[in-house]
């Protein structure tokens, strides 16, 4: 190993590491020997055909799903049955869902402040000020008093992003954040995500938005049938796919 490489390895803080992770739903082997290292500030795009296990993979990282074999280490904490570990990992990871999953009985502001106040014990005033800052950043501050049901899909998804950011996470997971949106709203959400990427957030994003992948991603992972088939930097990945399955997949979505 050269000196340069060694330095690289120590200065790059590993945020998420998966070692030989396997997961089954009953008899169904949904994740097979997943190995992955995500360093600080890296933006990773995960794509692959429907049902290949993309959601399952990122949901294992904050323990919304439990894996049966292998190790998942997030910010130095190994995910196991210890609830304290799960808790600490979840404080460090924000997640944005395909279906937004805003709390419909709470206003936009309350959605954003609930966890900071009750999980991080921030004083309400402070939490509201921080929430306002993030709502401004996703350009939705004027809707703070509305209920989610009164917003458009794109606006709801931006609120969901702001809600996650209020917890000050160091890693963000996105599970197809734009696939429930009408085409004209996709851009407003992607713009917010591009901003976030430029600020150096560590991001793992399941998406089929190839334009977005090319602008922000450091790496693209292609999954099929529970395995990571191919992994490359975005331009290489799209222009020069290696495996046949990747070629087939790209020919279908492009």
């Amino acid at each position, binding site marked *: 190993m050269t000196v340069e490489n060694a330095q690289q390895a120590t200065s790059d803080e590993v945020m998420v590491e998966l070692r030989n992770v396997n997961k089954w739903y009953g008899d169904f082997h949904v994740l097979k020997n997943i190995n992955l290292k995500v360093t600080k500030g890296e933006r990773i795009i995960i794509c692959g055909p429907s049902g290949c296990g993309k959601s399952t993979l990122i949901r294992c990282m904050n323990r919304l799903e439990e894996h049966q074999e292998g190790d998942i280490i997030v910010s130095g904490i190994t995910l196991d049955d210890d609830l304290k570990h799960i*808790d600490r990992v979840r404080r460090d990871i924000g997640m944005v869902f395909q279906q937004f999953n805003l709390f419909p*009985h709470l206003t936009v502001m309350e959605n954003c402040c*609930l966890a900071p106040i009750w*999980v991080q014990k921030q004083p309400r005033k402070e939490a509201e000020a921080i929430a306002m800052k993030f709502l401004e950043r996703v350009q939705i501050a004027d809707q703070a008093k509305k209920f989610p*049901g*009164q917003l458009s899909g794109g606006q709801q998804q931006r609120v969901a992003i702001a809600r996650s950011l209020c*917890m000050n996470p160091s890693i963000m997971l996105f599970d197809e954040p734009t696939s429930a949106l009408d085409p004209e709203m996709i851009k407003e959400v992607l713009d917010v995500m591009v901003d976030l990427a430029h600020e150096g957030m560590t991001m793992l994003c399941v998406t089929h938005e190839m334009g977005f992948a090319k602008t922000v991603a450091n790496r693209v992972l292609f999954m099929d049938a529970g395995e990571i088939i191919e992994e490359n930097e975005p331009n290489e990945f799209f222009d020069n796919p290696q495996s046949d399955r990747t070629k087939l997949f790209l020919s279908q979505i492009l």
Partner: protein
Amino acid sequence: MTVHITTPTPDKAPPASSVGAVGWLRKNLFSSIPNSIFTILGLLLIYNLVPPAINWAFFTADWVGSTKGDCTSEGACWVFVIVRIRQFLFGFYPPSEYWRVITAFSLVGVLVAWLLIERTPKKGVVAAFTVFCYPIIAYFLFYGGSFGLPVVETHKWGGLMLTLILATIGMFCALPIGIILALGRRSSMPIAKSMSVVFIEFWRGVPLITVLFMSSVMLPIFMPETWQFDKLLRALIGIVFFQSAYMAEVVRGGLQAIPRGQYEAAEALGLSYWKTMFFIILPQALKLVIPGIVNTFIALFKDTTLVLIIGLFDLLAVVQAAFADPKWLGFSVEGYVFVASVYWVSCFSMSRYSQHLEKKLHTGHAR
């Protein structure tokens, strides 16, 4: 190619048959021959029943007097109810202590109004006071035995006062116990789950009458002398357990309607199980099942009349007992109408309030 240029069409008045009283009648009451027949039959029925009933209850009724002899007209004899109203309201509670009952009910009335009316300040403090301090105050007011208040044994409690005590305690306890049971039944912990299932299925499977009989007749036989406690308390526990089993199933229905995404979003934000339930799941689930909750409350309120079979004198029992008074034979209709009106007004108010609540809590999301 031709070009069409349309001038704006001026507004026309709607056809006469679709507006106004005539239009409404034609559309809603006389739209077809069977519909017209039903309308006419219904009107006849109303004409034959309602005016005589109103006449009986109000215009030809007797209101003043003190004995049976004062009831001279052919309508209702409300004198019977008025003369005995104290007993109907307080049972055999000593008249010198009525103020205690009135104080206790006024206080809870103010507290509940405070909580229900919008824009009153310090709701949290008032709620905590109602839940933690009021029951103690009410206990000393009703039962006495401290602060210089003489003891009034529970067998002297009766009438509307007893009905309201049974119903309010029943509701205040059945809802939280029902929520805990519903959460237990959906929990992934096998012990909590099976205990909730057994509890719910047991209490739902036995008639309330049986529960009350067991509480008043069987328990004293099986339990050692020193363990015995008040009959009213035993009946109350029976009612609370019985109704909380129903409540649990109502609440569970609401819990099941909450999409999984809500749990996941809360989990991903790091909220604990109880915080997720308290802030996210229960507010939504309970809002969905307000009609079911109020339905159970109304059933509970009316079921309290069953305590008369174990010798507790609730409103209905006190009124029935008054029928046996030789000085006032033959006024059972007035008595029953009085009881029915009290129940109806109470239950109808609950029903209206629940509708108001549903509207108020609607936040514009459709599922």
